């Protein structure tokens, strides 16, 4: 049942990304475009998402645990400094590639080849991070195996 709910949420999120066009890599460039009229599409879509999510979560804040069982996933541990460094890296990558990960997942459903390249690289980045963070002694091998 939990998996069915997750499948439905994925479907809903993907449909939202596709319907709104928010998965389009060009939108971030448009928002940041220096030539005057920055396109607010992305900002508006994200604001709409924040608003609805906040509304529903506030209305249901009495729930102490998930309706289908289990427990609430905790926010990533760590200090704000680390999160800010991560945020800058994430933003740099997003700005360069145009995709954020969930947008690329929706684009993958359109069989967009670049989305597959991007997602494979995201997984690669996660693996690289783990090699550096948890097992420093594998650092050299990690770099070698990526050529």
């Amino acid at each position, binding site marked *: 049942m*939990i998996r069915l709910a997750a499948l439905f*949420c994925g479907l809903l999120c993907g449909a939202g990304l596709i319907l709104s066009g*928010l998965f389009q890599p060009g939108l971030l460039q*448009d928002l940041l475009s220096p030539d005057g009229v920055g396109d607010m599409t992305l900002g508006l879509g994200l604001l709409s998402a924040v608003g609805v999510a906040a509304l529903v979560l506030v209305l249901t804040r009495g729930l102490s645990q998930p309706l289908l069982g289990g427990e609430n996933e905790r926010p990533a541990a760590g200090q*704000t400094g680390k999160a*800010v460094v991560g945020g800058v890296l994430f933003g740099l990558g997003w700005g360069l590639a145009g995709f954020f990960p969930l947008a690329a997942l929706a684009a993958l459903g359109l069989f*967009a080849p670049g989305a597959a390249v991007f997602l494979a690289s995201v997984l690669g980045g*996660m693996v690289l991070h783990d090699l550096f963070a948890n097992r420093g002694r594998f650092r050299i091998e990690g770099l070698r195996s990526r050529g």
Partner: protein
Amino acid sequence: MGMPVDMLQGTLGPVVLGGAMIGLALALLRILTGRVMSASGMIGSLLGGREGLAATSIAFIAGMFISPSVLVAVGHAKQLPLEAGWPLLVVGGLLVGVGARLGSSLLGSIHGVTQLSGKALATILAIMAGAGVAGALRQILGAGGVA
């Protein structure tokens, strides 16, 4: 490709609606399964972590993957993303992967903001700063790729 204002108005409805669907998916996933709808959570948990998380992640990702096909099946016009060149996708993906592993991602931070987390707000600002730098870099390098 900064959209002229009249074109933006033409897409306003779908953008707000799609954003709302994304926000609803985020909130429902949290209420029903306790999971955080983010790259760190949904993609990161595929690389190991707490028992049972990968199964919900895979179900969610499957939902995202089939969502464009479902939309096309009900008559939505298929629109492919305008993707950056592969070098940008690879470099950007790696950066995004490391950033997500440090606990920072776009939708994860949006989730955090709905919980009034100052750390999440700082992360979003860091993401936008990183994206701004990346945008400037792409202008300087002339590395278009995205039409």
